[in-house]
């Protein structure tokens, strides 16, 4: 039941996130995808160059303001933010302690005693969170928070096909763009197929089998899914060939850069430059 719920949930989430054609009706949604990509990339690039916590915090606030003014939805934004501390803290936790970052202790975690070693490394008598470690963790968290928010703003306010089209026009190889677009679209179909295989098994199951039998079934299911995916891949390729595909995907270029797009790009670059400058001066 848990597998079925997980597959159904994943398929539903994917269908909702990937298949919705219009993302939002905000001013950000109207920015030409190429200009938006360049502006967001400039801001994300800025986060990696900022060291001081204050400019990083300012950039994070700017990212939040962008997300809110772009009507991306607070609930969706909260879901994205929820993942930031969960994964980032797990990565940065060792760097907060005097095991990695030396500095004055702020909070003691445990006493180990003198002479402790881990392989060739000496371990301090007392493992503690240090003030320098907190700064390192704060910098890392703010960078991740700002980058994730900015990336989310880009995805949530741009139609996926327009975004891929914009990336293609910025020089991304067309074949790569086509593969990305098709992967995105067929993921939902793949999950539906996986769910159908699971349901077909469930409908013929009276009592739960042994662990070995379940493992055997999972392996067979993966094999079946692979065969179906392979067949679908061949069918899609045939369908493309039949309509004239010769290895080079052509696309219409619908959007043009306007003054407002130029203004957005100039603002994004100016904000990034100002923050980097203040970071160097602070």
């Amino acid at each position, binding site marked *: 039941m848990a597998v079925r719920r997980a597959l159904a949930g994943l398929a539903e989430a994917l*269908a909702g996130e990937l*298949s919705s*054609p*219009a993302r939002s009706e905000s001013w950000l949604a109207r920015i030409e995808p190429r200009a938006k990509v360049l502006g967001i990339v400039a801001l994300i690039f800025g986060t990696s160059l900022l060291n001081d916590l204050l400019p990083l915090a300012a950039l994070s606030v700017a990212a939040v303001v962008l997300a809110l003014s772009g009507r991306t939805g607070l609930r969706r934004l909260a879901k994205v933010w929820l993942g930031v501390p969960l994964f980032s803290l797990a990565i940065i936790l060792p760097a907060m302690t005097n095991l990695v970052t030396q500095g004055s202790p702020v909070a003691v975690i445990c006493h180990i005693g003198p002479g402790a070693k881990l392989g060739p490394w000496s371990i301090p008598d007392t493992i503690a969170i240090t003030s320098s470690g907190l700064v390192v963790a704060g910098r890392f968290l703010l960078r991740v928070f700002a980058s994730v928010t900015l990336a989310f703003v880009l995805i949530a306010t741009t139609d*996926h*096909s327009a975004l*891929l089209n914009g990336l293609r026009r910025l020089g991304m190889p067309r074949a790569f763009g086509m593969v990305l*677009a*098709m992967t995105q*679209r*067929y993921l*939902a*179909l793949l999950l539906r197929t996986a769910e159908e295989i699971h349901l077909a098994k469930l409908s013929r199951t009276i009592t739960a089998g042994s662990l070995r039998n379940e493992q055997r079934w999972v392996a067979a299911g993966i094999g079946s899914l692979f065969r179906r995916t392979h067949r*679908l891949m061949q*069918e*899609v390729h*045939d*369908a*493309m*060939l*039949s*309509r*004239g*595909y*010769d290895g080079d*995907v*052509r*696309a*219409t*270029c619908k959007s043009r850069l306007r003054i407002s797009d130029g203004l957005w790009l100039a603002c994004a670059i100016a904000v990034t430059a100002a923050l980097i400058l203040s970071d160097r001066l602070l």
Partner: protein
Amino acid sequence: MRPAQQNVKVCMESRLNELIYEVNGADYWYPGNVAGLRGIAFSVRAGERVAVLGANASGKSTLLHLLDGLYLPSRGDVFAFGTKLTWESVETPPFSRQFRQRVGFLFQNSDAQLFCASVEDELAFGPLQLRLPLEEVSTRVEDTLQLFGIEHLRERSPQTLSGGEKKKVALASVVACSPSVILLDEAGADLDPRTQQWLVEFLDLLHRSGITLISASHDLSFVAETADRALILSEDHRLVYDGPVKDALADLDLLLSVNLIHAHSHAHDGEVHVHPHLHEAWHNHEHER
């Protein structure tokens, strides 16, 4: 005829009676020596409505793949528009481009046929691949959307459409290339009655516009309405009939032998009868007492 239907008129360029296909003793073997087709020979002229009939796995789809140059015969030849189909000819311009423009293929699985991000992109894919000017592509997309009455689906992702809508968009994506020949693989399968009726009427419109239609099916009622000539494949992948659809549908022994109908026994007035039986709308219920 609405302005949008001018799109269909392009196919009128194909002159009636022009030899479109000539298949000479074609065999097709799948990997592992699995037979797909054996010794198939027939020809198709422009403007014909041909139905390829046969039971499951008799080779109907394989034959359509051969006619579209997606498979090449293991033995024998397939000529299209007077040119022998080889890997070189189907992959080298200018023939490859002309061939792809002239022959459209409606696949059985719409999920495989619809791979673009939106319906609009789907309709533009073929014309763009054929290197048509952007203005021409845009005109064709608009005309085709209007012709099929699917303007409201323009921005939708094909993956989110219903089965009937997917079939419509798939056919629209084929028609957008203005082909003179359309190959249809089980086009009427899995459609509700209203969509199937729309499809029958639309195929009739295409035929009257001069398009050659070759459809594979085992649905006899669909075939009766959409074809004049039948090619019947046996379960051992051989062509066992080539002639008028009416005659084929009247030959119950033939249909029984190729597993398109089955023997059916039931009781009337206490007496048990056995007779060939069709589950389709075309239903001959004369009892052999």
